[in-house]
């Protein structure tokens, strides 16, 4: 019965999802965009302090919202005027029955006067679900009737999309898609702990955070993938800086919050994802957060690396391919990386993956991403079917330039391009590949004495007493290890460039390791020089990083060689032929 108005809604001031009929009037005299004032009738009362927010003006101007239509007020904000009167600004409204289908005035409303006894009704009367089923109200109760903490009974489940800060009595039933670790903090104002999670139902998703006592109460109860009834959380405007969950609001658990497992959950979605085809990744900006799904075509070994904060973290990359025929490299971290088993070429879906322009385009799973292996999603089944039938034979065009291959989407430039295209002038450094010949190698100061600790490369201070001190490790050592910083000039047909090569690249160019070179420099000057002579005039594929740096008002491009590889002539030829043909058109 779409004409059943939410009687009593005006009085209770609990608006979202309430049904009204109304009379709409354009206000005169205001400068700026026109404002439309609306008198709402909820079947029992009328009230004229409703205003359409300007972004919805077109609804009135195009007569989509007309006098006497029945509409559902979905989102609103209440402003209090200086004289205490309340004005409700309509943010979202939906017409349920157009005016022409409404037979005259509905109900026998009387004008609502502020200050009438405010009676608290059970929330359920204003919820969309009950608007369809018929209102169930409890009159005369002064205290809010608490929803029972056990599921079922007279508590009605509402959709996540209807949650808002203006209603506090609701129960939702949702699946947990993501749960963070417990994070602690300690600052001048005190200390505490928190955890956050994301939940989803058919209507949408929302992010929930629990602090201190709520962490103790609920953290261990929550399992990703399971469904729970939840009620009594505090809703507020979402801080989009910290989450990309699609909801204008987010929730905080409080002392009255309840979370109860629900067994019958098969009808709830596993996750709400809007998957982007891998072939479309190039058209998204880097740092974008998006959802992807594909087959894990191949997976690399687990590696460990040390972060700048000297923490060890596990990392694993794998290649994801979808029906677009494109593949992309995906990086997993920590436990997720350790536990990942890509051997059976599983379907992998990632919600909230982070897009990077590393290697062209690549993805990584951050702590707020959800990685699902062989998820129960229709897209997953389609992918499995496609892959088993034909996908497994597809070579796949990779969006991520792999180390060791220079083809496909690699950024090839000539040395003169660096100047003409102003590479390195932007906020971030630019990376490119080029084929160039070494024309000069500086042998002076190419070696330095570094800390002998395995993961430390800091230059040590010679204490002049046979000991060498590393400031970073805060230790003294009786020895050091030689490391290379090689300054070189490379050239191609159009231009030349000064570059700095570190250890691995320098060793590749000189054809000797740093330790041997250091030893030679100290013992056999002539042999040491000979190495540099021999290394000159060799041609390589250089992968370089350029960035504009400013010292004392002077700006110069600084180029660093990240990697040096022998020229793959076949690939080079193919590329040249392709470029020539392209230019000829």
């Amino acid at each position, binding site marked *: 019965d779409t004409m059943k108005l939410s009687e009593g809604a005006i009085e209770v001031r609990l608006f979202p999802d309430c049904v009204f009929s109304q009379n709409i009037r354009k206000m005169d005299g205001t400068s700026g965009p026109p404002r439309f004032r609306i008198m709402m009738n909820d079947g029992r009362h009328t009230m004229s302090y409703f205003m359409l927010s300007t972004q919805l003006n077109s609804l009135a101007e195009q007569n989509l919202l007309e006098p006497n239509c029945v509409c559902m007020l979905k989102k609103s904000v209440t402003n209090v005027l200086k004289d205490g009167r309340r004005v409700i600004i309509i943010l979202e409204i939906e017409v349920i029955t157009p005016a022409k289908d409404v037979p005259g005035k509905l109900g026998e409303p009387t004008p609502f006067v502020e200050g009438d006894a405010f009676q608290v009704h059970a929330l359920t009367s204003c919820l969309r679900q009950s608007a369809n089923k018929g209102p169930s109200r409890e009159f005369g109760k002064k205290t809010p009737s608490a929803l029972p903490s056990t599921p079922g009974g007279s508590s009605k489940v509402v959709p996540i999309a209807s949650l808002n800060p203006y209603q506090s009595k609701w129960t939702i039933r949702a699946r947990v898609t993501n749960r963070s670790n417990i994070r602690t903090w300690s600052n001048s104002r005190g200390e505490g702990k928190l955890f956050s999670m994301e939940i989803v139902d058919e209507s949408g998703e929302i992010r929930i955070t629990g602090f201190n006592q709520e962490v103790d109460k609920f953290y261990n109860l929550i399992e990703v993938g399971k469904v729970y009834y939840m009620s009594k959380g505090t809703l507020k405007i979402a801080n989009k800086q910290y989450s990309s969950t699609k909801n204008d609001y987010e929730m905080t658990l409080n002392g009255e919050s309840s979370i109860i497992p629900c067994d019958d959950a098969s009808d709830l979605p596993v996750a709400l994802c809007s998957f982007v085809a891998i072939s479309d990744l190039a058209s998204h900006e880097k740092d974008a957060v998006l959802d992807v799904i594909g087959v894990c075509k191949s997976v690399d070994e687990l590696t460990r690396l040390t972060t700048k904060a000297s923490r060890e973290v596990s990392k694993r990359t794998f290649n994801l391919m979808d029906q677009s025929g494109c593949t992309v490299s995906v990086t997993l971290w920590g436990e997720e990386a350790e536990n990942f088993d890509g051997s059976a070429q599983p379907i992998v879906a990632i919600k909230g993956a982070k897009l990077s322009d590393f290697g062209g385009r690549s993805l990584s799973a951050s702590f707020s991403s959800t990685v699902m292996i062989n998820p129960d999603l229709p897209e997953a089944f389609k992918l499995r079917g496609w892959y088993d039938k034909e996908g497994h034979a597809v070579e796949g065009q990779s969006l991520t330039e792999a180390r060791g291959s220079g083809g496909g989407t690699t950024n090839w430039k000539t040395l003169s391009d660096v100047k003409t295209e102003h590479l390195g002038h932007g906020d971030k450094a630019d990376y490119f590949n080029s084929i160039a010949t070494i024309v000069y190698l500086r042998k002076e100061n190419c070696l330095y004495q570094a800390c002998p600790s395995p993961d430390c490369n800091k230059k040590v201070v010679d204490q002049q007493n046979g000991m060498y001190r590393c400031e970073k490790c805060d230790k003294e050592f009786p020895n050091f290890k030689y490391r290379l910083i090689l300054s070189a000039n490379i050239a191609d047909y159009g231009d030349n460039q000064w570059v700095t090569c570190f250890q691995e690249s320098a060793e590749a160019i000189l054809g000797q390791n740093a330790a041997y070179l250091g030893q030679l420099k100290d013992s056999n000057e002539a042999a040491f020089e000979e190495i540099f002579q021999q290394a000159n005039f060799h041609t390589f594929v250089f992968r370089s990083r350029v960035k504009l740096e400013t010292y004392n008002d002077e700006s110069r491009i600084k180029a660093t060689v990240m990697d040096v590889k022998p020229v793959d*002539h076949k690939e080079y*030829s*193919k590329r040249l*032929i392709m470029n*020539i043909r392209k230019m*000829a058109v």
Partner: protein
Amino acid sequence: MSAIYEAPRARINTSMLSQYVSRPVCFVGRVEKVHPSGKSFTMCDGEGKVVSVELNEPLDEELSGVVEVVGMVTNKGALMGSAYTIFQEEKGVAFDLELYNEALKVIHDFSQYYPFKVETSG
């Protein structure tokens, strides 16, 4: 024989033979069949088209794989071979004849950028 190395020799494939009759050329192809006498053999170019090569002296070694022949084009569309070089397969990367053919086409399509001239050295 050394005379052939004194003149510029265009690199060609089978399709271009007719344009270079009585002119010195350089032909790279894959050996197909060697005549039992050793005085001639056939080879195919990067497009799979066959050319016949005749020699003044019979071959004194096994000929197989990719070979570069320098010689004159006869009016019958065969090659009068003056010298040849075998591109050893075992050494490094195998020669990509199809890619060579693509490069060849570029040289001929844009001949203004790939001039064949005799440079007189001073």
